[in-house]
């Protein structure tokens, strides 16, 4: 394809060359962006790393780990007067290792990050145990440690008022603040619960303690909290911040959001469009598929929420409870022939 530019007449040579060069740079940068890397590396301070570095990270990590372990083992034989120095050095090496993980964490597969963290934690533990075993506790106490006394009863006058931002006095007199009536559906069973929030500018929206309900939510919210749902179907328009789901069983969710966090869910299906990687923690039998919701104007709402495009993140689930490279047994991709058809909630109450 570049041959054409080469054959162009001499007068246009210079500009054609420049164009060609620009095109090449663009192609290069496109290719760079479409690497099969984690889709959303936080623009970390160190931008040098890339996908291929995983293996070099692993060998570097393994090497330092072995060195630290053998130095730990040697401590038992060391001259007691040098022990403190040894421990300080080992401690510094662990800190370096930790830094290495931190700097690499944005391109490493998630299970590598978590298992590296586990290793570091174990090394620190080993160091602590060893140092309290080999170095006798000193008798004196440090001056700069404030005496730890039981907190006295809170004085009623705002003695520490200067610590607070200049804010109006809290509503309600009791300690626990009166919870404002935030929008949402709570404590319902066997109902269709529908709400059109367009134009209402809702902040957070809450669904809690629902049993065998169908929820239809048209329009955008900033945050969605879901708590204790059983046998429910939840059809929701885009959420510009995050969705937090805790305790769901036998449910179906259609959700679009910047972030989706799922805790303690069982036997539930999630049809998602999400800008970052969905995460699960303490879940089992959860399945994932792409978002399948329709109502009149949803394209516009998705666009406005920055969710106009399907980035394919719905299947890039991170399981915080799974440390290994193998696929987590707690979640799977919903087979296509078991997926539901697009759900249309244009007619809210139908």
């Amino acid at each position, binding site marked *: 394809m570049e041959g054409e530019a080469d054959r162009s007449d001499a007068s246009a040579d210079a500009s054609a060359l420049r164009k060609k060069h620009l095109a090449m740079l663009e192609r290069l940068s496109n290719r760079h962006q479409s690497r099969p890397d984690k889709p959303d590396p*936080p623009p970390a301070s160190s931008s040098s790393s890339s996908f291929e570095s995983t293996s070099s990270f692993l060998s570097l990590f393994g090497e330092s780990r072995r060195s630290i372990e053998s130095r730990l083992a040697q401590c038992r034989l060391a001259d007691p007067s040098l022990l403190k120095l040894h421990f300080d050095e080992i401690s510094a090496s662990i800190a370096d290792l930790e830094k290495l993980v931190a700097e690499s964490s944005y391109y490493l597969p998630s299970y590598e990050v978590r298992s590296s963290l586990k290793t*570091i934690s174990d090394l620190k533990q080993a160091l602590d145990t060893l140092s309290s075993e080999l170095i006798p506790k000193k008798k004196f106490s440090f001056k700069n440690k404030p005496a730890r006394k039981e*907190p006295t009863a809170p004085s009623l006058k705002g003695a520490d008022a200067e610590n607070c931002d200049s804010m109006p006095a809290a509503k309600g007199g009791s300690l626990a603040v009166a919870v404002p009536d935030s929008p949402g559906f709570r404590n319902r069973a066997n109902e269709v619960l529908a709400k059109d929030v367009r134009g209402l500018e809702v902040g957070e929206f809450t669904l809690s303690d629902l049993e065998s309900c169908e929820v239809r939510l048209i329009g955008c919210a900033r945050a969605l909290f879901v708590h204790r749902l059983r046998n429910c179907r939840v059809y929701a328009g885009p959420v510009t911040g995050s969705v937090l789901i805790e305790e769901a069983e036998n449910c179906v969710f259609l959700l679009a959001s910047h972030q989706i966090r799922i805790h303690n869910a069982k036997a539930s299906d999630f049809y998602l469009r999400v800008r970052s990687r969905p995460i699960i923690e303490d879940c089992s039998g959860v399945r994932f598929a792409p978002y399948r919701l329709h109502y009149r104007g949803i394209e516009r709402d998705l666009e406005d929420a920055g969710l106009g495009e399907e980035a394919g993140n719905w299947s890039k689930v991170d399981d915080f409870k799974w440390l290994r490279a193998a696929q987590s047994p707690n979640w799977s991709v919903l087979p296509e022939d078991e997926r539901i058809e697009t759900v249309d909630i244009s007619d809210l109450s139908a």
Partner: protein
Amino acid sequence: MGLLSIIRKIKRKEKEMRILMVGLDNSGKTTIVLKINGEDTSVISPTLGFNIKTITYQKYTLNIWDVGGQKTIRSYWRNYFEQTDGLIWVVDSSDLRRLDDCKMELDNLLKEERLSGASLLIFANKQDIKGALTPAEIAKVLNLEAMDKTRHWKIVGCSAYTGEGLLEGFDWLVQDIASRIYMLE
């Protein structure tokens, strides 16, 4: 104290501060760090481990440790306590249901000897969300008044989305740490 005291000395010379940022998952820690550093905040995944950001703030170098708050990794927080000059506790002011959890985790953290000298900044984040509790309300729920009198602390309302309140919070924290550590020389 051998090496450690040498490290301390170097740290002082370079006017470095080590800041640990923790709080429940979803509270907005990573968003705050990126925002204060002027980076894009449009795509952020929940933090699997931690991130370190080194930023220059006024005449100081801040090493900010942003550690993930998902339940599974909260047990790793204690790995980061050592040598912390400033502690930032981030609260999602719109997550009313988990304020109990939030209080419990903060109380645990404050019992930690290794953090006893650290200045504490509490960010009541997500103030842009309608229905979010005000900083004064959060202070009440967390019972901050009952804190050990020796602790330097402040609560500031903020929004990592709009950026509001972030500078006010960091200004206070950096000043407070500086007055403890550097003015003594």
